[in-house]
């Protein structure tokens, strides 16, 4: 083992993981998150700081735009990626990704660990070496292929790391341009207000802002690969500076649901007549709200509290007893309720008087806290869940439209005029669960979980 290999081994002992979740893959996401927590591997906020990309669920293209490929393009070498399509294989997939990452070839021959984790089969594919990753490979019009593997102008040493590493507009990092407009269905020329292009990227257009000043208006797709973001959600934003002028929810690609929507599972099972206890439902509900809470706190930048919420969620789903859970959850809930900084920062953001999402970000958070405490009390309930009404974490499960649909419908109006950070908070405070939108909602027999 030469020095270089040994250094890499030490450096990447705990690789930074970019976890990208597809709709319908909540189980897989939770399994990966729990595993990362157990291993103490940090999570990366974006591709540039990641070593290992973990796709929970097979990423589906949005409007023919293969965003997953672009996320991958943005990751600096040495890098590896794995796809987890079954929660039980999470640990194995991470091991495999880590091994690929440490393979001496990874950083130099540009080995790309790419495997589909269905339990077997890992197809390694070569990729261009030395950071060129296809060199001048044009982003425009999507990428058809990685054809120009030859794009590496050789081993020009580290000069080879030319900065034009074409990772144009990885999701959420829409560039100063028509952001995502340069890919997918709305690509090139499809848009009328082009103002010319620089380096193959379209320029921003202009429009009047709220004070009637003509300012640059950027079209930026937000999602699906952002930290603490609802899986599969894509928002098309028009940004002026960091103010959202207009927001539109992209239609969700049909998730490849491996089972019923995870957070609604107990109620869906009860619907088919299976015996489900009140305690089981309460446990799932409590965990669902803690999951939402963890994300909202993550977006609000309270890393410590977010971590506690996630730990509590994992031990709930791991089946911990009430005696163990109460001392973990109660102090957290009390602390959040009392925090005046949290109130100062969240109150008044995303306020709406009526409707399914009445109140503001802070009052929605308090509603979650109430529900968490309420569910925690019922966690040992042995009686059978009544057949009606079936109220899941986000609303009634037994109605025609899933509750998350009304959350999504409320989004554009709430986001209009919000500053970027507030927009993130608003999305996190609604936390729509796109798994609910899957056409097949009812469980088919017993699934894992």
């Amino acid at each position, binding site marked *: 083992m030469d020095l270089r290999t040994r*250094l*890499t081994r*030490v*450096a990447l*002992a*705990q*690789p*930074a993981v970019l976890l990208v979740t597809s709709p319908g893959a909540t189980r897989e996401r939770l399994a990966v998150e729990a595993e990362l927590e157990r291993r*103490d591997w*940090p999570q990366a*906020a*974006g591709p*540039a*700081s990641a*070593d290992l990309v973990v796709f929970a669920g097979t990423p589906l293209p949005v409007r023919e735009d293969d965003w997953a490929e672009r996320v991958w393009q943005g990751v*600096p*070498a*040495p890098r590896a990626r794995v796809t987890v399509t079954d929660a039980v294989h999470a640990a194995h997939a991470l091991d495999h990704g880590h091994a690929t990452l440490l393979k001496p070839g990874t*950083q130099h021959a540009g080995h790309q660990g790419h495997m589909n984790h269905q339990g077997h089969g890992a197809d390694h594919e070569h990729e261009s070496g030395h*950071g060129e990753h296809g060199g001048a490979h044009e982003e425009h019009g999507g990428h058809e292929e990685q054809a120009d593997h030859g794009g590496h102008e050789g081993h020009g040493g*580290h000069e080879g*790391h030319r*900065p*034009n*590493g*074409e*990772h*144009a507009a990885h999701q*959420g*990092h829409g*560039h*100063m341009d028509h*952001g995502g407009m340069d890919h997918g269905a709305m690509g090139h020329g499809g848009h009328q207000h082009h103002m010319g292009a*620089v*380096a*193959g*990227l379209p320029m921003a257009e202009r429009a009047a802002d709220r004070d009637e000043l003509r300012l640059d208006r*950027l079209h*930026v797709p937000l999602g699906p690969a*952002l*930290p*603490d973001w609802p899986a599969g959600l894509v928002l098309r934003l028009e*940004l002026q500076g*960091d103010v959202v002028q207009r927001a539109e929810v992209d239609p969700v690609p049909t998730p490849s649901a491996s089972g019923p929507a995870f957070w609604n599972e107990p109620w869906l099972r009860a619907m088919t007549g299976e015996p489900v206890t009140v305690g089981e439902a309460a446990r799932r509900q409590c965990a669902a709200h803690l999951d939402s809470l963890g994300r909202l706190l993550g*977006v*609000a*930048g*309270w*890393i*410590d*509290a977010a971590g506690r919420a996630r730990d509590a969620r994992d031990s709930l789903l791991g089946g911990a007893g009430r005696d163990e859970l109460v001392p973990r959850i109660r102090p957290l809930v009390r602390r959040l309720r009392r*925090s005046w*900084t949290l109130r*100062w*920062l969240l109150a008044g953001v995303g306020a709406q008087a009526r409707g399914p999402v009445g109140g503001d970000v802070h009052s929605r958070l308090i509603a979650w806290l109430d529900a968490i405490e309420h569910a925690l009390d019922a966690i040992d309930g042995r009686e059978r869940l009544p057949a009606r009404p079936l109220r899941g974490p986000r609303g009634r499960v037994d109605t025609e439209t899933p509750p998350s649909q009304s959350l999504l419908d409320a989004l554009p109006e709430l986001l209009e005029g919000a*500053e*970027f*950070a*507030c927009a993130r*908070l608003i999305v996190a405070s609604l936390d729509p669960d796109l798994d609910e939108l899957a056409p097949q909602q009812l469980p088919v027999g017993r699934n894992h979980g």
Partner: protein
Amino acid sequence: MLVLAAWATATVDARSTGPGREVLRLLVQQRRITRAADIPLVRLGTTLLPVAAVLAAAVLPFGFRSVSDLPDGVVWFNAMEALAWAAVWLTGWAPNSTLSLIGGYRFLAQGLAYELPHMLAITTAALGAESLQVGAVVDAQSGLWFAVWMPVAFGIYLLSALAMAFWGPFDQPAGADVAGGAAGELSGVDRLVFLGGRWLLLVVAAAFAVPLFLGGGHGPLLPGWAWTVLKTAAVLGFLLWARRRVPTVRMERYVELAWVVLTPLAVAQALVVAVVVLAR
């Protein structure tokens, strides 16, 4: 010395990976940036941050000796620390990426919010010593620490120390909600230099609280340098603790607090100090 302090703080703060491992990780990582990025600006912005921190540290007394005890050292410190504005803005702007740009914007807004009360706070300390020389400020505290009789200025200084290093509750310019913000598109050495520079800046800002408000090297029994180290460690420890207690402060809220509450408070504090100085 500074680097050691930054290192030690990072070790205490590191949640999982130690800083040594993190540095190695970034060193083996490829340096890569977005398409159509302005490379010279990225390099300039990232390197400017540690450079600003080190230059600001030139007037920082270790015990009672500093690299250079300029006659207007307090102004020098503030000027160097303001270089960080340019550094973060350039780093956010250069990669040609929206989220990174938003990070850059945020730091400018942050600068506008924290700088006014911050300048009044350090001016108050200089006023108390009747000198802009850092050595003179320390000498003026051989009896009573400034932190004791100008607590408001001290509190405001601690807040702005966090804000200028855009760290902890003021980490919005590099926040997770914008996928790393200004630092979001940096990898490899660029990232190392930029984030390392941020740690240095935090340590320097915390360490400067010691000569300004905590009596510098003054203290019983121990030599001056030991007191400097102890006090700096205490300030840093407090800042690390504070971060666990609060969420990220958004500038749109903080700017209101800074201008409506903190600035008048700082002015009032300066007034009280001025009256005391005149009367003595």
